[in-house]
């Protein structure tokens, strides 16, 4: 498998030259809700308003900082813009049972799903959590961000407001 033919490269160039570049919409992958339902990610929506998908894990310190910090302002975000945050945990079988008690123990109001074998993470080319994706009211991915530093949520919220007010992001 180490050697690959020139046709592979050709294939990539060919596809690349005809197509739109960058992820456009959320891929269709089955994830689990914290009450055990199987949900397909293609059904993710927020009634025509933008929403945020945040990849996190119970073992990821910056992820927990980010979601805790957003939780403090989340009510205002929802009131002012109608935005919704979908938190996708990539905890696997080892720690997925911790997700529901952890989220409730923190009092987070997010919509939470679990991606136990990282299928969605892989389909969306997420390198490592935390990773944030902003989806507009039409289901189009307009912005992505890797990592978290305190205050990053302000930048995210500026972009959400711009989007809600009809501005273009991408």
């Amino acid at each position, binding site marked *: 498998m180490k050697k690959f033919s020139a046709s*592979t490269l050709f294939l990539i160039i060919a596809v690349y030259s005809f197509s739109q570049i*960058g*992820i456009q919409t959320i891929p269709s992958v089955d994830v689990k809700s914290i009450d055990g339902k*199987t949900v397909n990610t293609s059904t993710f929506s927020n009634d025509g308003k933008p929403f945020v998908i945040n990849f996190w894990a119970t073992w990821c310190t910056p992820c927990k900082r980010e979601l805790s910090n957003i939780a403090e302002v989340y009510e205002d975000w929802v009131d002012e813009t109608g935005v919704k945050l979908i938190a996708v945990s990539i905890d696997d*079988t080892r720690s997925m049972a911790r997700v529901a008690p952890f989220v409730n123990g923190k009092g987070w109001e997010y919509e939470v799903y679990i991606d136990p074998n990282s299928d969605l993470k892989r389909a969306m080319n997420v*390198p490592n959590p935390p990773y944030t994706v902003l989806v507009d009211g039409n289901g189009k991915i307009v912005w992505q961000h890797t990592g978290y530093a305190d205050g990053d949520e302000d930048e995210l919220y500026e972009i959400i407001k711009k989007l809600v007010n009809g501005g273009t992001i991408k």
Partner: protein
Amino acid sequence: MKGTKIKKRIMQRLLLIISIVFIGSGLFAQQNFNAGSVSGNFKLEAQAYIPDSLIGADTVNEKMLSNSYMNVIYTNGNFTAGVRFEGYFNTMQGYDQPYDGFGLANRYATYQGDFIEVTGGNFYEQFGNGLIFRSYEDRDLGYDNAMDGMRVKFKPAKGVKLTGIIGNQRLYWEKGEGIVRGLDADISLNDFVPGFSESDHRLTIGGSFISKYQKDENPLYNLPENVGAGAGRLNYSLKGFSLASEYAYKSQDPSFDNRYIYKPGSAFLLNANYSRKGMGAMLQYKWVDNMSFRSDREETINNVLVNNLPAISKNHSYAYAAMYPYATQVNGEAGLQAELFYKFKKNSPIGGKYGTAVSTNISRVVDIERTAINDSTNIAAMGTDGYETSFLSMSDSLIYQDFNVEIYKKFSKKLKGVFTYQNLKYNQNVLEGHLGMVNAHTVIADVTIKIKPKHALRIEAQALFTGMETDTAGNDYRQDYGNWAMLLLEYTISPHWFFAVSDQYNIISFDDDVAKNTLHVNYEKTSLQRNHYYSVAMGYTKESTRISLSYGKQREGILCVGGVCRSVPAAYGALISISHTF
């Protein structure tokens, strides 16, 4: 490998066909203004190494080593295809050497219809909790047991999902010898049974079967060429309560891991949790007996693992809490974990102005009870039936115990922190094959100060203390490496910059009698000295691009991400890392 030439020709033909289909669909699609989209990601890491005999960082002949990968995914309607290139020039320290080189590591095509989904090529999949089958990858850990073959997913009725898989597993740039094939059925009774869909009681049942084939060429033993494994699971939830359980059984599978015993294996997993706003509780139980399962019975480490038995302990994220990480003992263990989460409300005596969140977690793992099959055979003697054990048996032999408390507290708009205490009992004899029990106490403070809008300083202070032991000569010594302390300062300017400095230090002095004994007893290295492991780092992030640079020393240890661990050797040098998602 046999048949490589034929395989190569088939591969080339396949690629040619895929190319034609691609280009054809691309051209066709362009006329319809739907040419699909291309997305992907990329990561490159390179480290320059400086030898440092004091910390045990070896000379690297190449002076610089680099790992990189690039994923490209093409999507057009119901059709998805992807490739991943990987390059190791040469493989960075801490990863497995056979990765050296560059090539196409992964390629697949998937058609996704309403009732059926088919994938040809590489894929990742998990049946139930993974007790008998889990194909998974984590690039940062160098873990990849991708399947290479075919997968079909079929939804014949509402709430019913059937999955079939067949193929070989990835083994570096080759494929594992064994063939893995299996079936899984998952039935959501709420969707399947009419009139049950609105019920608060949610019930899902599932069953799976996996079989592997590997030729028997062993001169000593007559080994089973086909090994089968089955598992059944049940998930139930009612409002805030949820219960998940799975039982798995595997037919006799003599292997390097189980020292060639002819004994079936089994595993049982139970997860229960209850939560409502402001509180949560979790209980986890696991029992494992002789469940190592690889598609090549001779393989070791993380290679060609067919299943994944989750470790029953908290997956810590702070360095010292994770200094002695736990890994499942596939040959046998019984484990229990319990955790409580509670949030003291705002304006309550403990909650203070902003509320305080507390979690406490305990996990305990012991060996299973084994008895000899007869008077003349030792337990687990090679080539025998191994031993006898009863289902859910437990012995007194402690393998691992972790008790920890974490407190999240916000003091003011500008100041908040996470405080952790941990007591760990770690049986090095079982887990690493040397010495005895390590009893460690760890304290961690992680405080974030908001200096001004967008500027934050994070201070992370950690200390670990190991217990005292007395050797046969009557000398006292510290367990393992003894006591450690570290301090990390991280300054971030949102949304682009981060700067960090850190240092860690082996608190015990080499001149101490205690340390002399420790170092002598543990390592028999006479040149060891106490060392500073300092590091400076900076990084720049813009949207989905991240560039970071670091320079310093890294302590030898075990790095775990998700559920998988790898050992990292001591290193000194400069590291650059670039990643981008498009």
